[in-house]
């Protein structure tokens, strides 16, 4: 008998006017002790429903879920089942019960009724497993997202479950946080022999697992080992991406270069070296064929000759001045943003990025004698600033903008901004319609619907429409793609590019270096409240000194390129896009 079994499981949940939505439809899965399974599928494929079924938070409408032959349908079994299966959820802020890390980790073992000494032992063990021992006494507010998720994992681990289910536990984290959590999970599987079900839509994470289950619209469409990546069609049909090395090797196969199916950078580099050596033996005379230099960056909106739209000079900012909590968020910041710029702002949490951009539309006012901010000729350090005028110029999209939706219909919500600008009814409707269409939604279909019943991706589009309807000249985006699956991520970024005709200037805060490298023409690097410099992507990601100094991670593509370069292949280490890398590889291998 297997440890965890799903037998013909069906589950539906109520939804809006349509009655019910079938989330799972005849699912059969068995999981054994000690397995490391990745459960993948795009948003709405039913994968989170599966997590909640596994430990009996919900019960199937039909079929059965059993853990060690005990069914989750029987309430009296649940306590035993939950001792064996621990679940870590997506939102790092919504899983902590108390204000102190170690007390929170103790919550589970306390519920088990263990003696205090053993609880203490388990808490210490769990915290050391996730590398959070030194934070045992701190509160949640000093922790990063990745650290909070590690605490959540420790909280589950202290119960000593045999299976750990991570329900998109990395979905809301930045790349560093994702890596932290992934490292912990891999270590738990390897050293502590825990079984893991990793629910995710990041294929790079799925590639780390031993077994992959693909879910598409409530059905299991594939279930197998890593060899699944050799048939990429299965992933594509389910709306999923492939890991970068797999994507590249597939394209190279199309160009007549057989690399096999490398899942990570190391094996990709090895395979590339191998075929480079092979082709070097085979053909010396073909060399001339590939003379054209493909190493050319795709043209980006260049803004070198544009006028300064936002100009920041000597800006400093202090939180809670003259109190014990005083902290300096900005130190003497100079920054010019030109019309037509797509400026990226990067830097670790607490570097002052959000404080800086919130000055642009006077959500944060310039403090006395702390520099100047000028937006399209308006001096924001002046005593009186026309806020309505300013806010119609600078549109601000915050992290998780869908959390600001409030009205009962989509149309009304989008009109909120134009209404506040004091526009006429007709103008409001016209702008709302235009904005909804621009974000790629069907106006007639969606305008009367409640924003709360939409899917995650749709909500974010509506929220974006609410800002676009103000017709700003500058769009400031704070992590616009956080928490979305890769497809929706790309859709949102394409959308931002598509409105460049009406809103030419974009400022984007992001931790995602792949996005920064792909979309920005200039990048401001911030650290400890200072702007360390403004670079083009190639200057930044090709400059080891700046990268190390500012602790900047490389984009995935650049990381792979520099590994290939280090392995002796003729590939420039500062390549920024997949197309470029593909071209460079074809050239390097054929010319070797």
């Amino acid at each position, binding site marked *: 008998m297997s440890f965890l079994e799903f037998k013909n499981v069906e589950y539906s949940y109520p939804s809006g006017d349509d009655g019910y939505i079938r989330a799972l439809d005849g699912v059969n899965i068995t999981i054994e002790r000690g397995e490391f399974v990745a459960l993948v599928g795009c948003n709405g494929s039913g994968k989170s429903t599966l997590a909640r079924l596994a430990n009996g938070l919900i019960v199937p409408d039909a079929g059965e879920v059993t853990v060690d032959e005990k069914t989750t349908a029987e309430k009296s079994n649940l306590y035993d089942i939950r001792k064996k299966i621990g679940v870590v959820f997506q939102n790092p802020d919504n899983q902590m019960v108390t204000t102190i890390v170690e007390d929170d980790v103790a919550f589970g073992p306390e519920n088990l009724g263990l003696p*205090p000494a053993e609880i203490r032992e388990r808490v210490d063990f769990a915290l050391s497993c996730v590398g959070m021992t030194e934070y045992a006494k701190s509160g949640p*507010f000093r922790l990063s997202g990745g650290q909070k998720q590690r605490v959540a994992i420790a909280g589950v681990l202290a119960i000593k479950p045999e299976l750990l289910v991570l329900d998109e536990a990395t979905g809301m984290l930045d790349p560093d946080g994702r890596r932290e959590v992934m490292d912990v999970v891999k270590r738990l599987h390897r050293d502590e022999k825990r079984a893991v079900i990793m629910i995710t839509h990041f294929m790079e994470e799925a590639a780390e697992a031993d077994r992959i289950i693909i879910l598409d619209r409530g059905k299991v469409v594939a279930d197998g080992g890593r060899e699944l990546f050799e048939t990429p069609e299965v992933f594509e049909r389910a709306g999923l991406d492939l890991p970068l090395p797999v994507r590249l090797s597939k394209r190279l196969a199309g160009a007549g270069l057989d690399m096999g199916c490398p899942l990570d950078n190391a094996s990709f580099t090895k395979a590339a070296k191998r075929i480079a050596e092979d082709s070097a033996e085979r053909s010396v005379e073909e060399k001339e064929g590939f003379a054209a230099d493909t190493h050319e960056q795709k043209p980006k909106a260049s803004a070198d000759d544009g006028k300064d739209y936002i100009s920041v000079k000597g800006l400093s900012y202090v939180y809670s001045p003259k109190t014990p909590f005083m902290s300096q968020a900005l130190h003497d910041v100079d920054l010019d943003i030109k019309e037509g710029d797509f400026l990226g702002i990067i830097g670790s949490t607490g570097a002052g990025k959000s404080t800086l951009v919130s000055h642009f539309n006077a959500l944060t006012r310039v403090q006395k004698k702390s520099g100047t901010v000028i937006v399209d000729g308006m001096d924001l350090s002046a005593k009186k600033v026309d806020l309505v005028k300013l806010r119609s110029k600078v549109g601000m999209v915050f992290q998780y903008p869908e959390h600001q939706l409030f009205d009962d219909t989509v149309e009304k919500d989008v009109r*909120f901004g134009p209404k506040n600008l004091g526009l006429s009814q007709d103008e409001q409707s016209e702008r709302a319609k235009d904005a909804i269409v621009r974000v790629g939604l069907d106006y007639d279909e969606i305008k009367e619907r409640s924003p709360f019943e939409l899917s995650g991706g749709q909500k974010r589009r509506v929220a974006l429409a609410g800002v676009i309807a103000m017709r700003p000249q500058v769009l400031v985006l704070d992590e616009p793609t956080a928490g979305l699956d890769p497809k929706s991520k790309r859709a949102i970024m394409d959308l931002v590019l598509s409105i460049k005709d009406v809103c030419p200037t974009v400022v984007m805060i992001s931790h995602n270096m792949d996005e920064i490298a792909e979309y920005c023409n200039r990048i401001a690097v911030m650290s400890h409240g200072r702007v360390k410099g403004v670079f083009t992507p190639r200057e930044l990601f090709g400059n080891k000194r700046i990268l190390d100094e500012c602790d900047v991670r490389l984009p995935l593509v650049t990381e792979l390129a520099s590994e290939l370069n280090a392995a002796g292949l003729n590939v420039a280490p500062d390549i920024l896009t997949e197309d470029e890398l593909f071209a460079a590889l074809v050239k390097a291998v054929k010319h070797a």
Partner: protein
Amino acid sequence: MRDVTIGQYYPANSLIHRADPRFKLIIMLLYLVMVFFCESFFSFGFLTLFVIITVIMSRVPPLKVLKGLRFVIIIVLITTVLMILFYRDANAQPIAEWKIFRIYLSGIYSSIKLAWRLLLLVIMPTLLTLTSTPTELCDGLESLLFPLKKLHFPVHELALIMSIALRLIPTLIEETDKIMNAQKARGAKFESKNPFKKIKAMLPVLIPLFVSSFRRADDLADAMDSRCYRGAKGRTRMKKMRCHAGDIIALLLWCAIFVCILFLKYNWLGWSFIPLLGI
């Protein structure tokens, strides 16, 4: 990112910090009653002496304690001045007079006593919150209310609710801030003078806040269920509150102080020196 925390815990390693929160709460109760039995300047001074000793023992910088009191100090100052100005004593001559104001010696005395009493009332609870974490206080309260369990009063649930509230209030404050900024960026104004308009203007903040609070509550419930929570039944605690000899000595000491103050007030044994000690 601003640091939002509730309470004002000041971490330090002192006897007061390490004391059993249950004893701290009991002594606090005793102390508050005690303050109302102080009548003469001598008894105020006597009690203040012990308060100062406690503050020193806590290793919290005195300035930090006073900072926690700054609003109270302002209120106390205002009431003292008003009281001195408007106090009326029919049996005495005013020591100074100006227009409608008459100042009596007895007025000065009683207003100083009032101010003193107020400060004493506030300073120790402030010290309590400076030296104990909210969780400790919650646990202490839960343990002290234990007898009520026999009456089917949901003591554990109440303590858990308090603990979760302490955990989530700062998160919600931060969230309110974020949503307000987001709506301001869409041109919303919250500064209306008309209270009805003001409430209406707050709807774009309140609705998202409610939605997210319910979502958080659901998430948290799932997380708690997943971690084998079944109410107080069969639950143990990692941090057993243990009282040490020091806690008992402290309690006895404060009882002794209480007795002294009662003596100063009632003079049961008719000692003749007590009336000499003051007004």
